[in-house]
């Protein structure tokens, strides 16, 4: 049940979706949110696959927007699917050309499920300023992925500067299994933490956020070290008070979680036998599904981001953004 519309307009897309919903009305009920995905052409397949996995856990309307070249005639192509190749969900995949790429919301707004939260996910380098993207302004939750930026650590800093409650980043989502293992380890500890250390591939934004989380939650300094990867390879928290002038304190108690191969982690604690745990790097779809689970602002992420980037008061900002109009054509003209 796929309808493909070439050189169409927003009204036609809305009608096609309504017609398809009527045809397959059984599955169309129970929408809880709209997932808006923006991706470049080369990443559409991966985005579709991830969104499909996520949508199976959280019934939603999926709207994928591909913004193609600006310097061409305005044009909209759309593919409407209800229970089609993307599984038992309703999805609209749209490709926009010309000046329309600057006004994607004119097509997306009427496609949003009535009065449901909207989550926008950028599968690609995060925008420098979310307020300049109409698809970010209309969303209640915004998910970026700093790992896909040319300079992930700089991108993370931009995310903090540009932050509004409701923003999260998949680099943060990737730390969830690490955080839950570490948090559960603290259940059985009575020694106060002293310092923390995270080792990862150079420029890994998840490592920066994990280190930020450790210092925000434990109130200790945490350091990031480069390793050969993949991803985060090692987390260590040293425990206990250091006595003044005690040369041996470096060898004090610690807990450590290391995962050199991206699959199996070893949990070690001074004085206890090592334990092996699966700690898989998760596919994109599972990460996205986790983000869809909670639609309120993630305050723990805000704290970790503050600590990782040296910013403060992120949660106190307004969750609403107002569109900042930026016309690339004018910017290009000004540059000449």
């Amino acid at each position: 049940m796929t309808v493909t519309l070439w050189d169409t307009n927003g009204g036609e897309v809305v009608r096609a979706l309504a017609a398809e919903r009527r045809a397959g009305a059984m599955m169309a009920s129970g929408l809880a949110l709209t997932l808006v995905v923006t991706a470049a052409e080369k990443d559409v397949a991966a985005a579709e696959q991830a969104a499909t996995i996520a949508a199976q856990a959280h019934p939603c309307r999926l709207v994928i927007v591909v913004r193609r070249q600006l310097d061409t005639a305005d044009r909209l192509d759309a593919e409407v699917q209800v229970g089609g190749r993307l599984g038992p969900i309703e999805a609209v995949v749209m490709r926009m050309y010309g000046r329309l790429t600057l006004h994607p919301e004119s097509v997306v707004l009427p496609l949003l499920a009535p009065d449901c939260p909207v989550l926008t996910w950028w599968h690609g380098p995060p925008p420098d300023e979310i307020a300049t993207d109409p698809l970010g302004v209309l969303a209640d939750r915004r998910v970026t992925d700093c790992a896909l930026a040319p300079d992930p650590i700089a991108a993370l800093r931009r995310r903090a500067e540009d932050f509004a409650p409701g923003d999260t980043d998949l680099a943060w989502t990737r730390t969830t299994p690490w955080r839950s293992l570490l948090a559960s380890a603290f259940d059985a500890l009575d020694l106060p933490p002293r310092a923390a250390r995270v080792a990862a591939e150079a420029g890994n934004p998840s490592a920066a956020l994990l280190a930020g989380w450790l210092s925000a939650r434990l109130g200790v300094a945490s350091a990031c070290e480069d390793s050969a990867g993949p991803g985060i390879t090692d987390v260590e928290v040293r425990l206990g008070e250091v006595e003044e002038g005690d040369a041996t304190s470096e060898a004090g108690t610690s807990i450590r979680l290391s995962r050199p191969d991206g699959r199996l982690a070893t949990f070690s604690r001074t004085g206890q036998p090592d334990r092996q745990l699966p700690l898989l790097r998760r596919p994109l779809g599972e990460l996205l599904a986790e983000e869809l689970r909670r639609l309120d602002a993630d305050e723990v992420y805000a704290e970790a981001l503050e600590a990782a980037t040296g910013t403060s008061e992120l949660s106190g900002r307004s969750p609403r953004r107002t569109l900042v109009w930026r016309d690339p054509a004018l910017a290009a003209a000004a540059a000449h």
Partner: protein
Amino acid sequence: MFGVTGDLARKKLIPAVYDLGNRGLLPPGFVLLGFARRDWDHGDFEQLARTAAEEHARTEFREDVWRRIADSVRFVPGSFDDDNAFDQLARTLVELEDSHGIAGNAAFYLSIPPAAFPVVLKQLARTRMADGEQRGGWRRVVVEKPFGHDLQSSKELNRLVDSVFTPHDVFRIDHYLGKETVQNLLALRFANTLFEPVWNSNFVDSVQITMAEDVGIEGRAAFYDTAGAGRDVLQNHLLQLLALTAMEEPVSFDAESLRIEKRKVLTAISLPQDLAASTARGQYIQGWLAGERVRGYLDEEGIPPTSTTETYAAVRLGVETRRWAGVPFYLRTGKRLPRRVTEIAVVFKRAPHLPFSKTDTTELGNNQLVVRVQPDEGVTLRFGSKAPGSAMEIREVSMDFLYGSAFTESSPEAYERLLLDVLLGDKTLFPDHEEVEASWRVVDQLEQFWSTTAPEPYRAGEWGPKGADEMLARENRTWRRP
């Protein structure tokens, strides 16, 4: 039918006649007699009617059905001030009585601009066509909105129509009332036990009635610029929907009982003290809508560049009855909004106590019952539900009833139903002049206030001006995104 070459006749009325014929609901002696200033014969009019039916009818176009209708299509050319033409019209009516066996029954559909009403009505009186007794049958007149442009003019219009026809024979069309879902609102409220007990200020927080259009003014510049959203939509459609939502249970479903209840509500409507804070008025400017660039209202053809006519209107009304004391009714309508949708949303109060932690219910809003009038006709119920997972996370879900899936027969077009009711003489779905006047009493006060203000600009493709959002924000509410 006067004004057969107009948009309404071609897109709605003639197709509705065909649909009724196709469903076998036209009486055997039915004749469609067109009158317009065109140098046409019956054949030319039949061709226009045929094209209209082919293009706009809801049901499948069938040649044999059309041939039957085509036999009874007649045309009389002439202008409204041409006595000869009306004499000819009167003669044609008499001839048709004999040739088609109609017992003197005739309904006059005035699908014409209000300015032409007086002259046409005078002609009908002069030729005694409006007098049914003379021919031993009934004579009815169907009037389209606008029913005047304020209380005064609407009263004058009434006096005029009543002086020619008896009040009982005047049918004022508000096509929204012919829609299935509007009638279903009555079924929903009065045929069930589930909803009526909570349909009052003890449980209802507020009511939002929205009629949004994505189109602009579509060649109606001359009329629209003098009317605006307030007179064009708020005065009739929105207030009628409010009346049906808020009215008490009628003692029976006949026309009089229903109108008694609607009239009570309309006369109980109160305007807010501070009109500046509780109303919003907007005019669209250039923007992008549905993937295309559209021009602003002031750039539309035939609109003066200094026009202060509103294309968006929102207002907070109260209904001063025990049932609705303190419950705000938010009404809004606008052109060039993101999508075409009409709905009535009853927003319930939040549960008085939530035995969950605060973070569990941050995504839980108010329960809502939404009657979708168009499109996707149906009803939605929104309530909180636990999201699957190990944590207690409560999220809003919606339960949908969709007409298209629950009943396989497609809903008749509003005009089909209303035309049939005119022929049957059933006035249940037609507002009477007292309702119209009560509505004008509300809208006149608004218009009077608005005449001193300039409309706030909003971009085409947005959900109206900022002022409308702020108006609800002041009362800690937000507009539903339909």
